[in-house]
């Protein structure tokens, strides 16, 4: 316990606010009927997750979260929503037995079991740290220990770009041929 009007207490207050932002964004992302509002909720949730990363001593990953998720992935999903023009979802619960209370029960079950597992496990604290986990250390290990994975993920990104182009282009030529 720390006093409220000190640096640690105020940072705890900000932490509570960030957690509320994350959870509220996630609930908006899964519950709103219109998909564009769901994407907005996803962006709010990712801003909260970036705040959590800042509290976990890594501002670089927080910045990347803002850049990649909020700046790229959410904008891409907005483009897809505008291109595909989905209707607002009707009343859920028709057609499948999983949509409705059963899905809610499944989500609650996963949450409860995972948090119970996290609470009952005895975590072993490390004896010492080999480095301080700063951005400089991340860059060094990214180019020495993990350079193979680094090259492989660039290959994966290149393949995904080409694959996305090919997939989107095929649909366009077929529609152009029919009309």
């Amino acid at each position: 316990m720390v006093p409220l009007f000190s640096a640690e207490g105020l940072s705890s207050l900000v932490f509570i606010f960030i957690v509320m932002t994350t959870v509220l964004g996630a609930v908006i992302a899964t519950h709103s009927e219109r998909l564009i509002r769901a994407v907005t909720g996803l962006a709010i949730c990712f801003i909260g997750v970036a705040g959590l990363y800042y509290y976990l001593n890594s501002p670089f990953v927080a910045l990347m979260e803002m850049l990649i998720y909020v700046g790229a992935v959410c904008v891409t999903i907005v483009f897809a929503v505008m291109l595909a023009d989905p209707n607002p979802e009707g009343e859920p619960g028709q057609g499948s037995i999983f949509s409705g209370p059963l899905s809610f029960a499944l989500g609650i079950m996963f949450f409860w079991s995972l948090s119970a597992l996290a609470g009952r496990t005895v975590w072993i604290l490390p004896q010492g740290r080999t480095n301080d986990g700063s951005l400089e250390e991340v860059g060094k290990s990214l180019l020495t220990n993990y350079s193979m994975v680094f090259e492989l993920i660039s290959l994966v990104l290149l393949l995904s770009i080409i694959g996305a182009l090919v997939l989107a282009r095929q649909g366009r030529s077929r529609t152009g041929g029919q009309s």
Partner: protein
Amino acid sequence: MSIPAFGDSLIIYLIIAALLFGIGFYGLVHRRTLIGMLIAGELILAGASINFMAFNRFLAPDPTVGQIFTLFIMGIAAAEAAIALSIIIAVYRNYRTIDVEDVADLNG
């Protein structure tokens, strides 16, 4: 007045990650459009990333491993979102809908 130091305990982060995973799983089962399911999948990936970052901060002897893993998760998630969205666009051009109930037939 005093307040617990929430940002310094591992269990808080694990519970937040479990909550994001549960909400994402609920959305994945509950949603009826493909884009909604993709959004729920992104929430699940965010929960996994928070778990990695929390273990990296509190338990790992080398505190760069979790950050690098989270960066790779971000790259894979971006690639997955691009591929999934182009598939969704192609499905929409063929079927004129992205409802999962309506694209269930395989007749082409």
